[in-house]
C-alpha cells in the first residue's frame, strides 16, 4: 500500500509538470486551433535559462533561497514569454488564415530551430542544475517518502493552475479569451481585440511552460536540449487525454498521464512504459473520442 501511494505521489509530481506544460498546448489550441509543437522547446529553454541564471548569479547566496527561486521563476517566465510572442509574430501570425496543418509544420520547423539553437548555446552535453539550488530534504510520513522538491513542485504547479483557472473563469480578460476561443469574428464584433488576446495566450502559455521547465530542472537536476521534444510530446498527449482546448482537461490529463507512467513502470515494465501509456490513451480515445473533458461534438446539420 505504501508502495502504491509512493508511486501515486511520484506520478502526481511528474504529472503536475506535464499538466502545466499541457496548459500551454491547450490554451493555444483553444484559441487558434493550432498544435504549437514548439511549446515543448519553450519548456526546454525555460529549464536552460533557469540553469544559466542559477549558475551565473549564484542567486542562493545573496537572497533567502525561497525568494531567490521565486525571483528566478519570474524572470525565466518573463523571458520565455517574450520569446513566445516573437515566435507567434514570426511563424504563426502570417499563417493564421492558412490551412491548419501549415501552421503545424511551421511550428515543427520552429521546434527544430530552437532545439538546435539550445544545443549550440549550451552545448550538447547534459547540464546539471547546481546541487545547492534546492536542498535535499526528505521526510518519511507513515512509511511514505516525500521530498521537499516534490512538495515545491506540487505547490507551484497548483498555484499556477488555480491562478490560470481563476484568470480564465473570473476576470474580464478571461471572458474575452473564452469568447475568442468560441469564435474570432463574433469576438471581434463584441469589441474584443482578438490579436491582443492571441498575443496574451502566447505570453501566458510559454510562461507556464518555462515555469515547468525550471521546476523539472530543479527536480531532475539535469537539462538537455532534447528534453523539450520528449516532454512536449508527453504534455501534448496529456492535453489530448483531457480533451484539447479544455483547461481543466489539460490539468487532469497531465496528472493522469504522470500517474499512468509511474504505475506502468512500477507494476509492469519500465521498458514497456511508453507503449503502455499510449495503449491506454488509444483505448480511452476509442471510448471517449474527444478525451476526458473534451466537448462532445454534436454537429449541427
Amino acid at each position, binding site marked *: 500500500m505504501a508502495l502504491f501511494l*509512493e*508511486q501515486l505521489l511520484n506520478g502526481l509530481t511528474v504529472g503536475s509538470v506535464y499538466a502545466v506544460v499541457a496548459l500551454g498546448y491547450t490554451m493555444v489550441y483553444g484559441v487558434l486551433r493550432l498544435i504549437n509543437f514548439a511549446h515543448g522547446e519553450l519548456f526546454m529553454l525555460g529549464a536552460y535559462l533557469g540553469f544559466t541564471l542559477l549558475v551565473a548569479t549564484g542567486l542562493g547566496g545573496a537572497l533567502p533561497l525561497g525568494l531567490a527561486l521565486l525571483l528566478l521563476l519570474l524572470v525565466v517566465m518573463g523571458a520565455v514569454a517574450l520569446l513566445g510572442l516573437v515566435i507567434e509574430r514570426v511563424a504563426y501570425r502570417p499563417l493564421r488564415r492558412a490551412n491548419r496543418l501549415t501552421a503545424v509544420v511551421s511550428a515543427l520547423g520552429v521546434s527544430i530551430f530552437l532545439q538546435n539553437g539550445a544545443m549550440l548555446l549550451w552545448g550538447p*552535453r*547534459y547540464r*546539471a542544475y547546481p546541487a545547492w539550488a534546492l536542498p535535499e530534504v*526528505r521526510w518519511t510520513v507513515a512509511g511514505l517518502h516525500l521530498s521537499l522538491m516534490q512538495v515545491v513542485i506540487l505547490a507551484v504547479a497548483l498555484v499556477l493552475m488555480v491562478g490560470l483557472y481563476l484568470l480564465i473563469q473570473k476576470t474580464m480578460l478571461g471572458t474575452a479569451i473564452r469568447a475568442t476561443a468560441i469564435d474570432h469574428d463574433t469576438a471581434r464584433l463584441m469589441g474584443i481585440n482578438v490579436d491582443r488576446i492571441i498575443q496574451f495566450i502566447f505570453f501566458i502559455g510559454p510562461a507556464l511552460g518555462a515555469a515547468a521547465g525550471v521546476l523539472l530542472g530543479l527536480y531532475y*537536476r*539535469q537539462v538537455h536540449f532534447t528534453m523539450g521534444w520528449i516532454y512536449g510530446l508527453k504534455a501534448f498527449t496529456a492535453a489530448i487525454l483531457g480533451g484539447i482546448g479544455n483547461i481543466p482537461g489539460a490539468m487532469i490529463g497531465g496528472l493522469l498521464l504522470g500517474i499512468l507512467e509511474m504505475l506502468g513502470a512500477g507494476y509492469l515494465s*519500465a521498458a514497456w512504459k511508453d507503449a503502455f501509456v499510449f495503449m491506454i490513451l488509444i483505448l480511452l480515445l476509442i471510448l471517449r473520442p474527444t478525451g476526458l473533458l473534451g466537448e462532445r461534438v454534436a454537429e449541427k446539420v
Partner: protein
Amino acid sequence: MRPRGAGAFAAAWVVTWLLAVLLAGAVGAQEPIRIGLQAPITGPWAYEGEMARNSVEIVKDQINARGGVLGRPIEIVLGDDQGNPRQSALVAQRMVAAGVVAVIGTYGSSINEAASTIYERAGVVNIAYGATAVQLTERGWRYFFRTCFRDDRQGAFFAQLVNEMLGASRVAILHDNTTFARGLAEAARASLAAEGLAELVFYDAVTPGERDFTPILSRMRARAPEVVYYTGYYPEAALIARQMRDLGIDALFVGGNAAINDEFVEIAGLEVASGALMTQEPLPTDLPYPEAQAFLEEYVRRHGQPPSSPWPVYAADALLVLAAAIEATGSTESEILAEFIRGPLAIQGITGPIAFDSRGDREGAIYLAYQVGPDGGLQPYEP
C-alpha cells in the same frame, strides 16, 4: 536540385581546398592526408559526437605538431550522421566521394552498420569507436575495425565477476535501451545464463533522461537481488544508486564502463557511491603511457572537463591507429592499410595496446573491476 546541390558542393570544395592550402603552407607545403570522422554532431547523441570530435582534434593536432604523417599534415573531414541510419549511409557515400583515406566512426551499432556496408563496398578502411554490437564483425568485412570492445567481452567479464569474485547468486540487470547499454545488458544476461551459477532475478530498462526510478526499483526490491548491474550512462546510474539506498536496497551496485566517473560520485554522493563497482577496461589514468595522461590533460585543458563516456577516447585511438598504419606502410591505399592493421600491431593507444583479430575486433580485452574508494577515487577491486 542538381545545379544547386552541385554548387554548394563545389563551394564546399573550394572552401576546404583554401583551408587545405593554408594549412599545408603552415606545415610544409604538403597535401594533407584526409581522414573522415563520422559522428552524430546534431541530434540526441550530439554530445557523443562533440566529444568524439574534440578527442580526434586533439590527436590530430598532436600528430600535426610533430610534423604530420609521412611529412603531410592530417586533415579531418567531418560527417554528421545525426544518429540516424539514413543519414549515416549518406555520410558514408559522401566520405567515399570526398576520397578520404579512411574513416573513424561512428557511434551506435545500427548506425555504423548502415555506413560500414558502404565503406566495405567502396573499399575504405573504417574504424568504429562506439559500436559494440557483436553482429558488426560477423559479416566477414575486410575494411571494418573497431577500437572499442565488443559487448560480449564485457558481458562475460561481468559474469566472471559475479561468479568468481563476488560469489553472488541473485543478480539484477538494468539498462537504458540505448544501443550500447542494451547490447551490454543482453551480453551479460547471456553470459550469466551460459555459466548457470547465478540467477538473473530482474531484467528491465529505464528511460534515459528520467530521474525518478523508484517505481522500477521498488519492483526490483521485491526480487531481492544481491548485485545490480547497470549498463547505461552515469547520470541515470548515479540516481539509481542513490534511489536504491533510499528504498533500502542494499545490493551491490555495479556499473558498466559508461556508468561510473567523477560525476557519478558527485551526483550519487560519496556515501552512496563508495563501494560501487564498475566493469571497465584499464582506465587512462592507470595506464603507464604518457600519451594517455597527456591526452586527458589536453582534453581537460581545452574543454574544461574530461569526456563523460568512454567512446570518444576510442575515436582518438582510431586516429592513432590510422596514423601509425600510414606512417608504417608509407601508403594511403585502403588495401595496404587494412592489411597492415589486421596484421600484428604494436600500437600504444590511449586505452592500452591495440591490435585486431582477423574479423576486425580489438584484441586483448582486459577488463578489470574498479571500486569507488572512500575518497571517491577509483581503485582496482580486490575481493
